[in-house]
């Protein structure tokens, strides 16, 4: 039995440009079999019984809702900003809870150990105090004033810099980060992950980027992001349990995990428990 709050959210189910005619993309959403296909020029998402789901197209992706959408899909204003390159980075299937995939995206402290010499490097491991809030107006989790030393912050970076980050949980399985842009100090690079929950322990993840970078070839940008995410996957598929524990006590956070703590609290408060473990086992 899946909570109504979970069913009423939007989830990514395909890349819009890649949707073809029936049978299209045969996949799963929250454990239900669905098909994403083109019918008379329109993208349709339907269940195995033929009933159609609510659909919206945004950020190059197809988003679907199994219930009654509780609200519009979250905005990313930068997606429409002139001069930005939108880069979709393909899809990575990960055997983990969709919530663990999002939580890892919000985490800074792993950079020196998982993305060694790229997004972080010893001895620059300290995570300073940053600010976290659950914004009541937009109903989003935000972390701001996050600073971290990075040997190669982006494909376009040519040396170590202290990068500033902002993190934003915009939907239960979608998050966006804003980070110092190596080419344009007054702007932010915007990177998202859109996570499709196939089941509670299996997801497909689309990294997504909106960058100020005219120089780097598309293939290099995609390769860079794929490398980062494959490093993350080696972690995500080896956490025990697969489900994200929402009750305190099962895992021990520290001050560096304030974003993760807020994300877990926000999920629990909203009843968004698909992919979560509620009782300490």
């Amino acid at each position: 039995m899946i909570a109504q709050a979970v069913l009423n959210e939007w989830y990514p189910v395909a890349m819009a440009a890649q949707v073809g005619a029936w049978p299209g993309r045969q996949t799963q959403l929250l454990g239900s079999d669905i098909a994403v296909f083109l019918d008379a020029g329109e993208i349709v998402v339907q269940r195995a019984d033929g009933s159609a789901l609510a659909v919206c197209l945004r950020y190059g992706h197809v988003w679907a809702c199994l219930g009654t959408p509780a609200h519009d899909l979250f905005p990313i204003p930068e997606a429409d900003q002139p001069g930005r390159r939108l880069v979709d980075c393909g899809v990575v299937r990960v055997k983990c809870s969709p919530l663990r995939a999002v939580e890892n995206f919000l985490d800074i402290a792993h950079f020196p150990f998982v993305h060694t010499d790229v997004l972080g490097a010893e001895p620059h491991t300290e995570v300073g105090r940053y600010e976290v809030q659950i914004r009541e107006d937009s109903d989003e989790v935000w972390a701001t004033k996050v600073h971290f030393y990075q040997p190669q912050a982006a494909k376009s970076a040519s040396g170590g810099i202290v990068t500033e980050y902002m993190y934003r949980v915009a939907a239960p399985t979608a998050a966006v980060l804003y980070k110092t842009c190596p080419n344009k100090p007054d702007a932010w690079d915007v990177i998202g992950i859109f996570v499709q929950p196939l089941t509670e322990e299996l997801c497909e993840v689309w990294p997504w980027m909106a960058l100020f970078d005219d120089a780097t070839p598309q293939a290099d940008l995609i390769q860079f992001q794929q490398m980062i995410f494959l490093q993350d996957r080696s972690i995500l598929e080896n956490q025990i349990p697969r489900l994200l524990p929402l009750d305190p006590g099962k895992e021990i956070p520290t001050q560096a995990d304030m974003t993760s703590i807020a994300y877990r609290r926000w999920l629990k408060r909203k009843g968004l428990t698909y992919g979560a473990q509620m009782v300490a086992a």
Partner: protein
Amino acid sequence: MSGMWVANGLSQDLPLGVVMAGSWQGAELAIWRSATGRLSAWNDRCPHRGMRLSHGFVRGETLSCIYHGWTYGTDGACSKIPAHPAMVPPAAIKAEVYACVEADGVIWVAPAGTEVVLPDLSGLVAVRSVTVQADVAALTRGLPGFVQHGAVWRGQVEGAAVALVVQDRGASVTLHGLGAGDRVRLSRWLDGVRRLVEEGVLA
């Protein structure tokens, strides 16, 4: 209490500064050897975010988690959290420690505090470990003439004494082989045992 001790590999297969995955009944373990040779076996889970410690790295007398670098001493206590270099980690942050000893070239694990009572394998030389995709019950097919004493099956191969120490992993079994005779012959014979048992399972 020797039934509490589970063989988890041969000493020769766990060099200094290396961590490997192990098991005790249903529990998954990280087993590692420090730079000076101290053996430890822990629950394969970092208390921070549940990452397998068997994917971690050994530096000196510590094991660190590969996810965030949380570092644990041989007593299991967390000694360093790299995100907060100036902080002394609270004593509550501790890996779940098992007892781990080695004797006659075999690494053994049991719950902490278990009295050390191990089978006598003296006079035999550790040769190799072989993992067989079968359950323990299927072993009798591949080991005719062998006699089982707890986790150890004893017999003869080409006139030389052989002992196989069984590590039951549920869906598979690892045999840790020791013998008094020629090592290469024993190694080849072990391959044959694996084939026999696995084919028996398929048939």
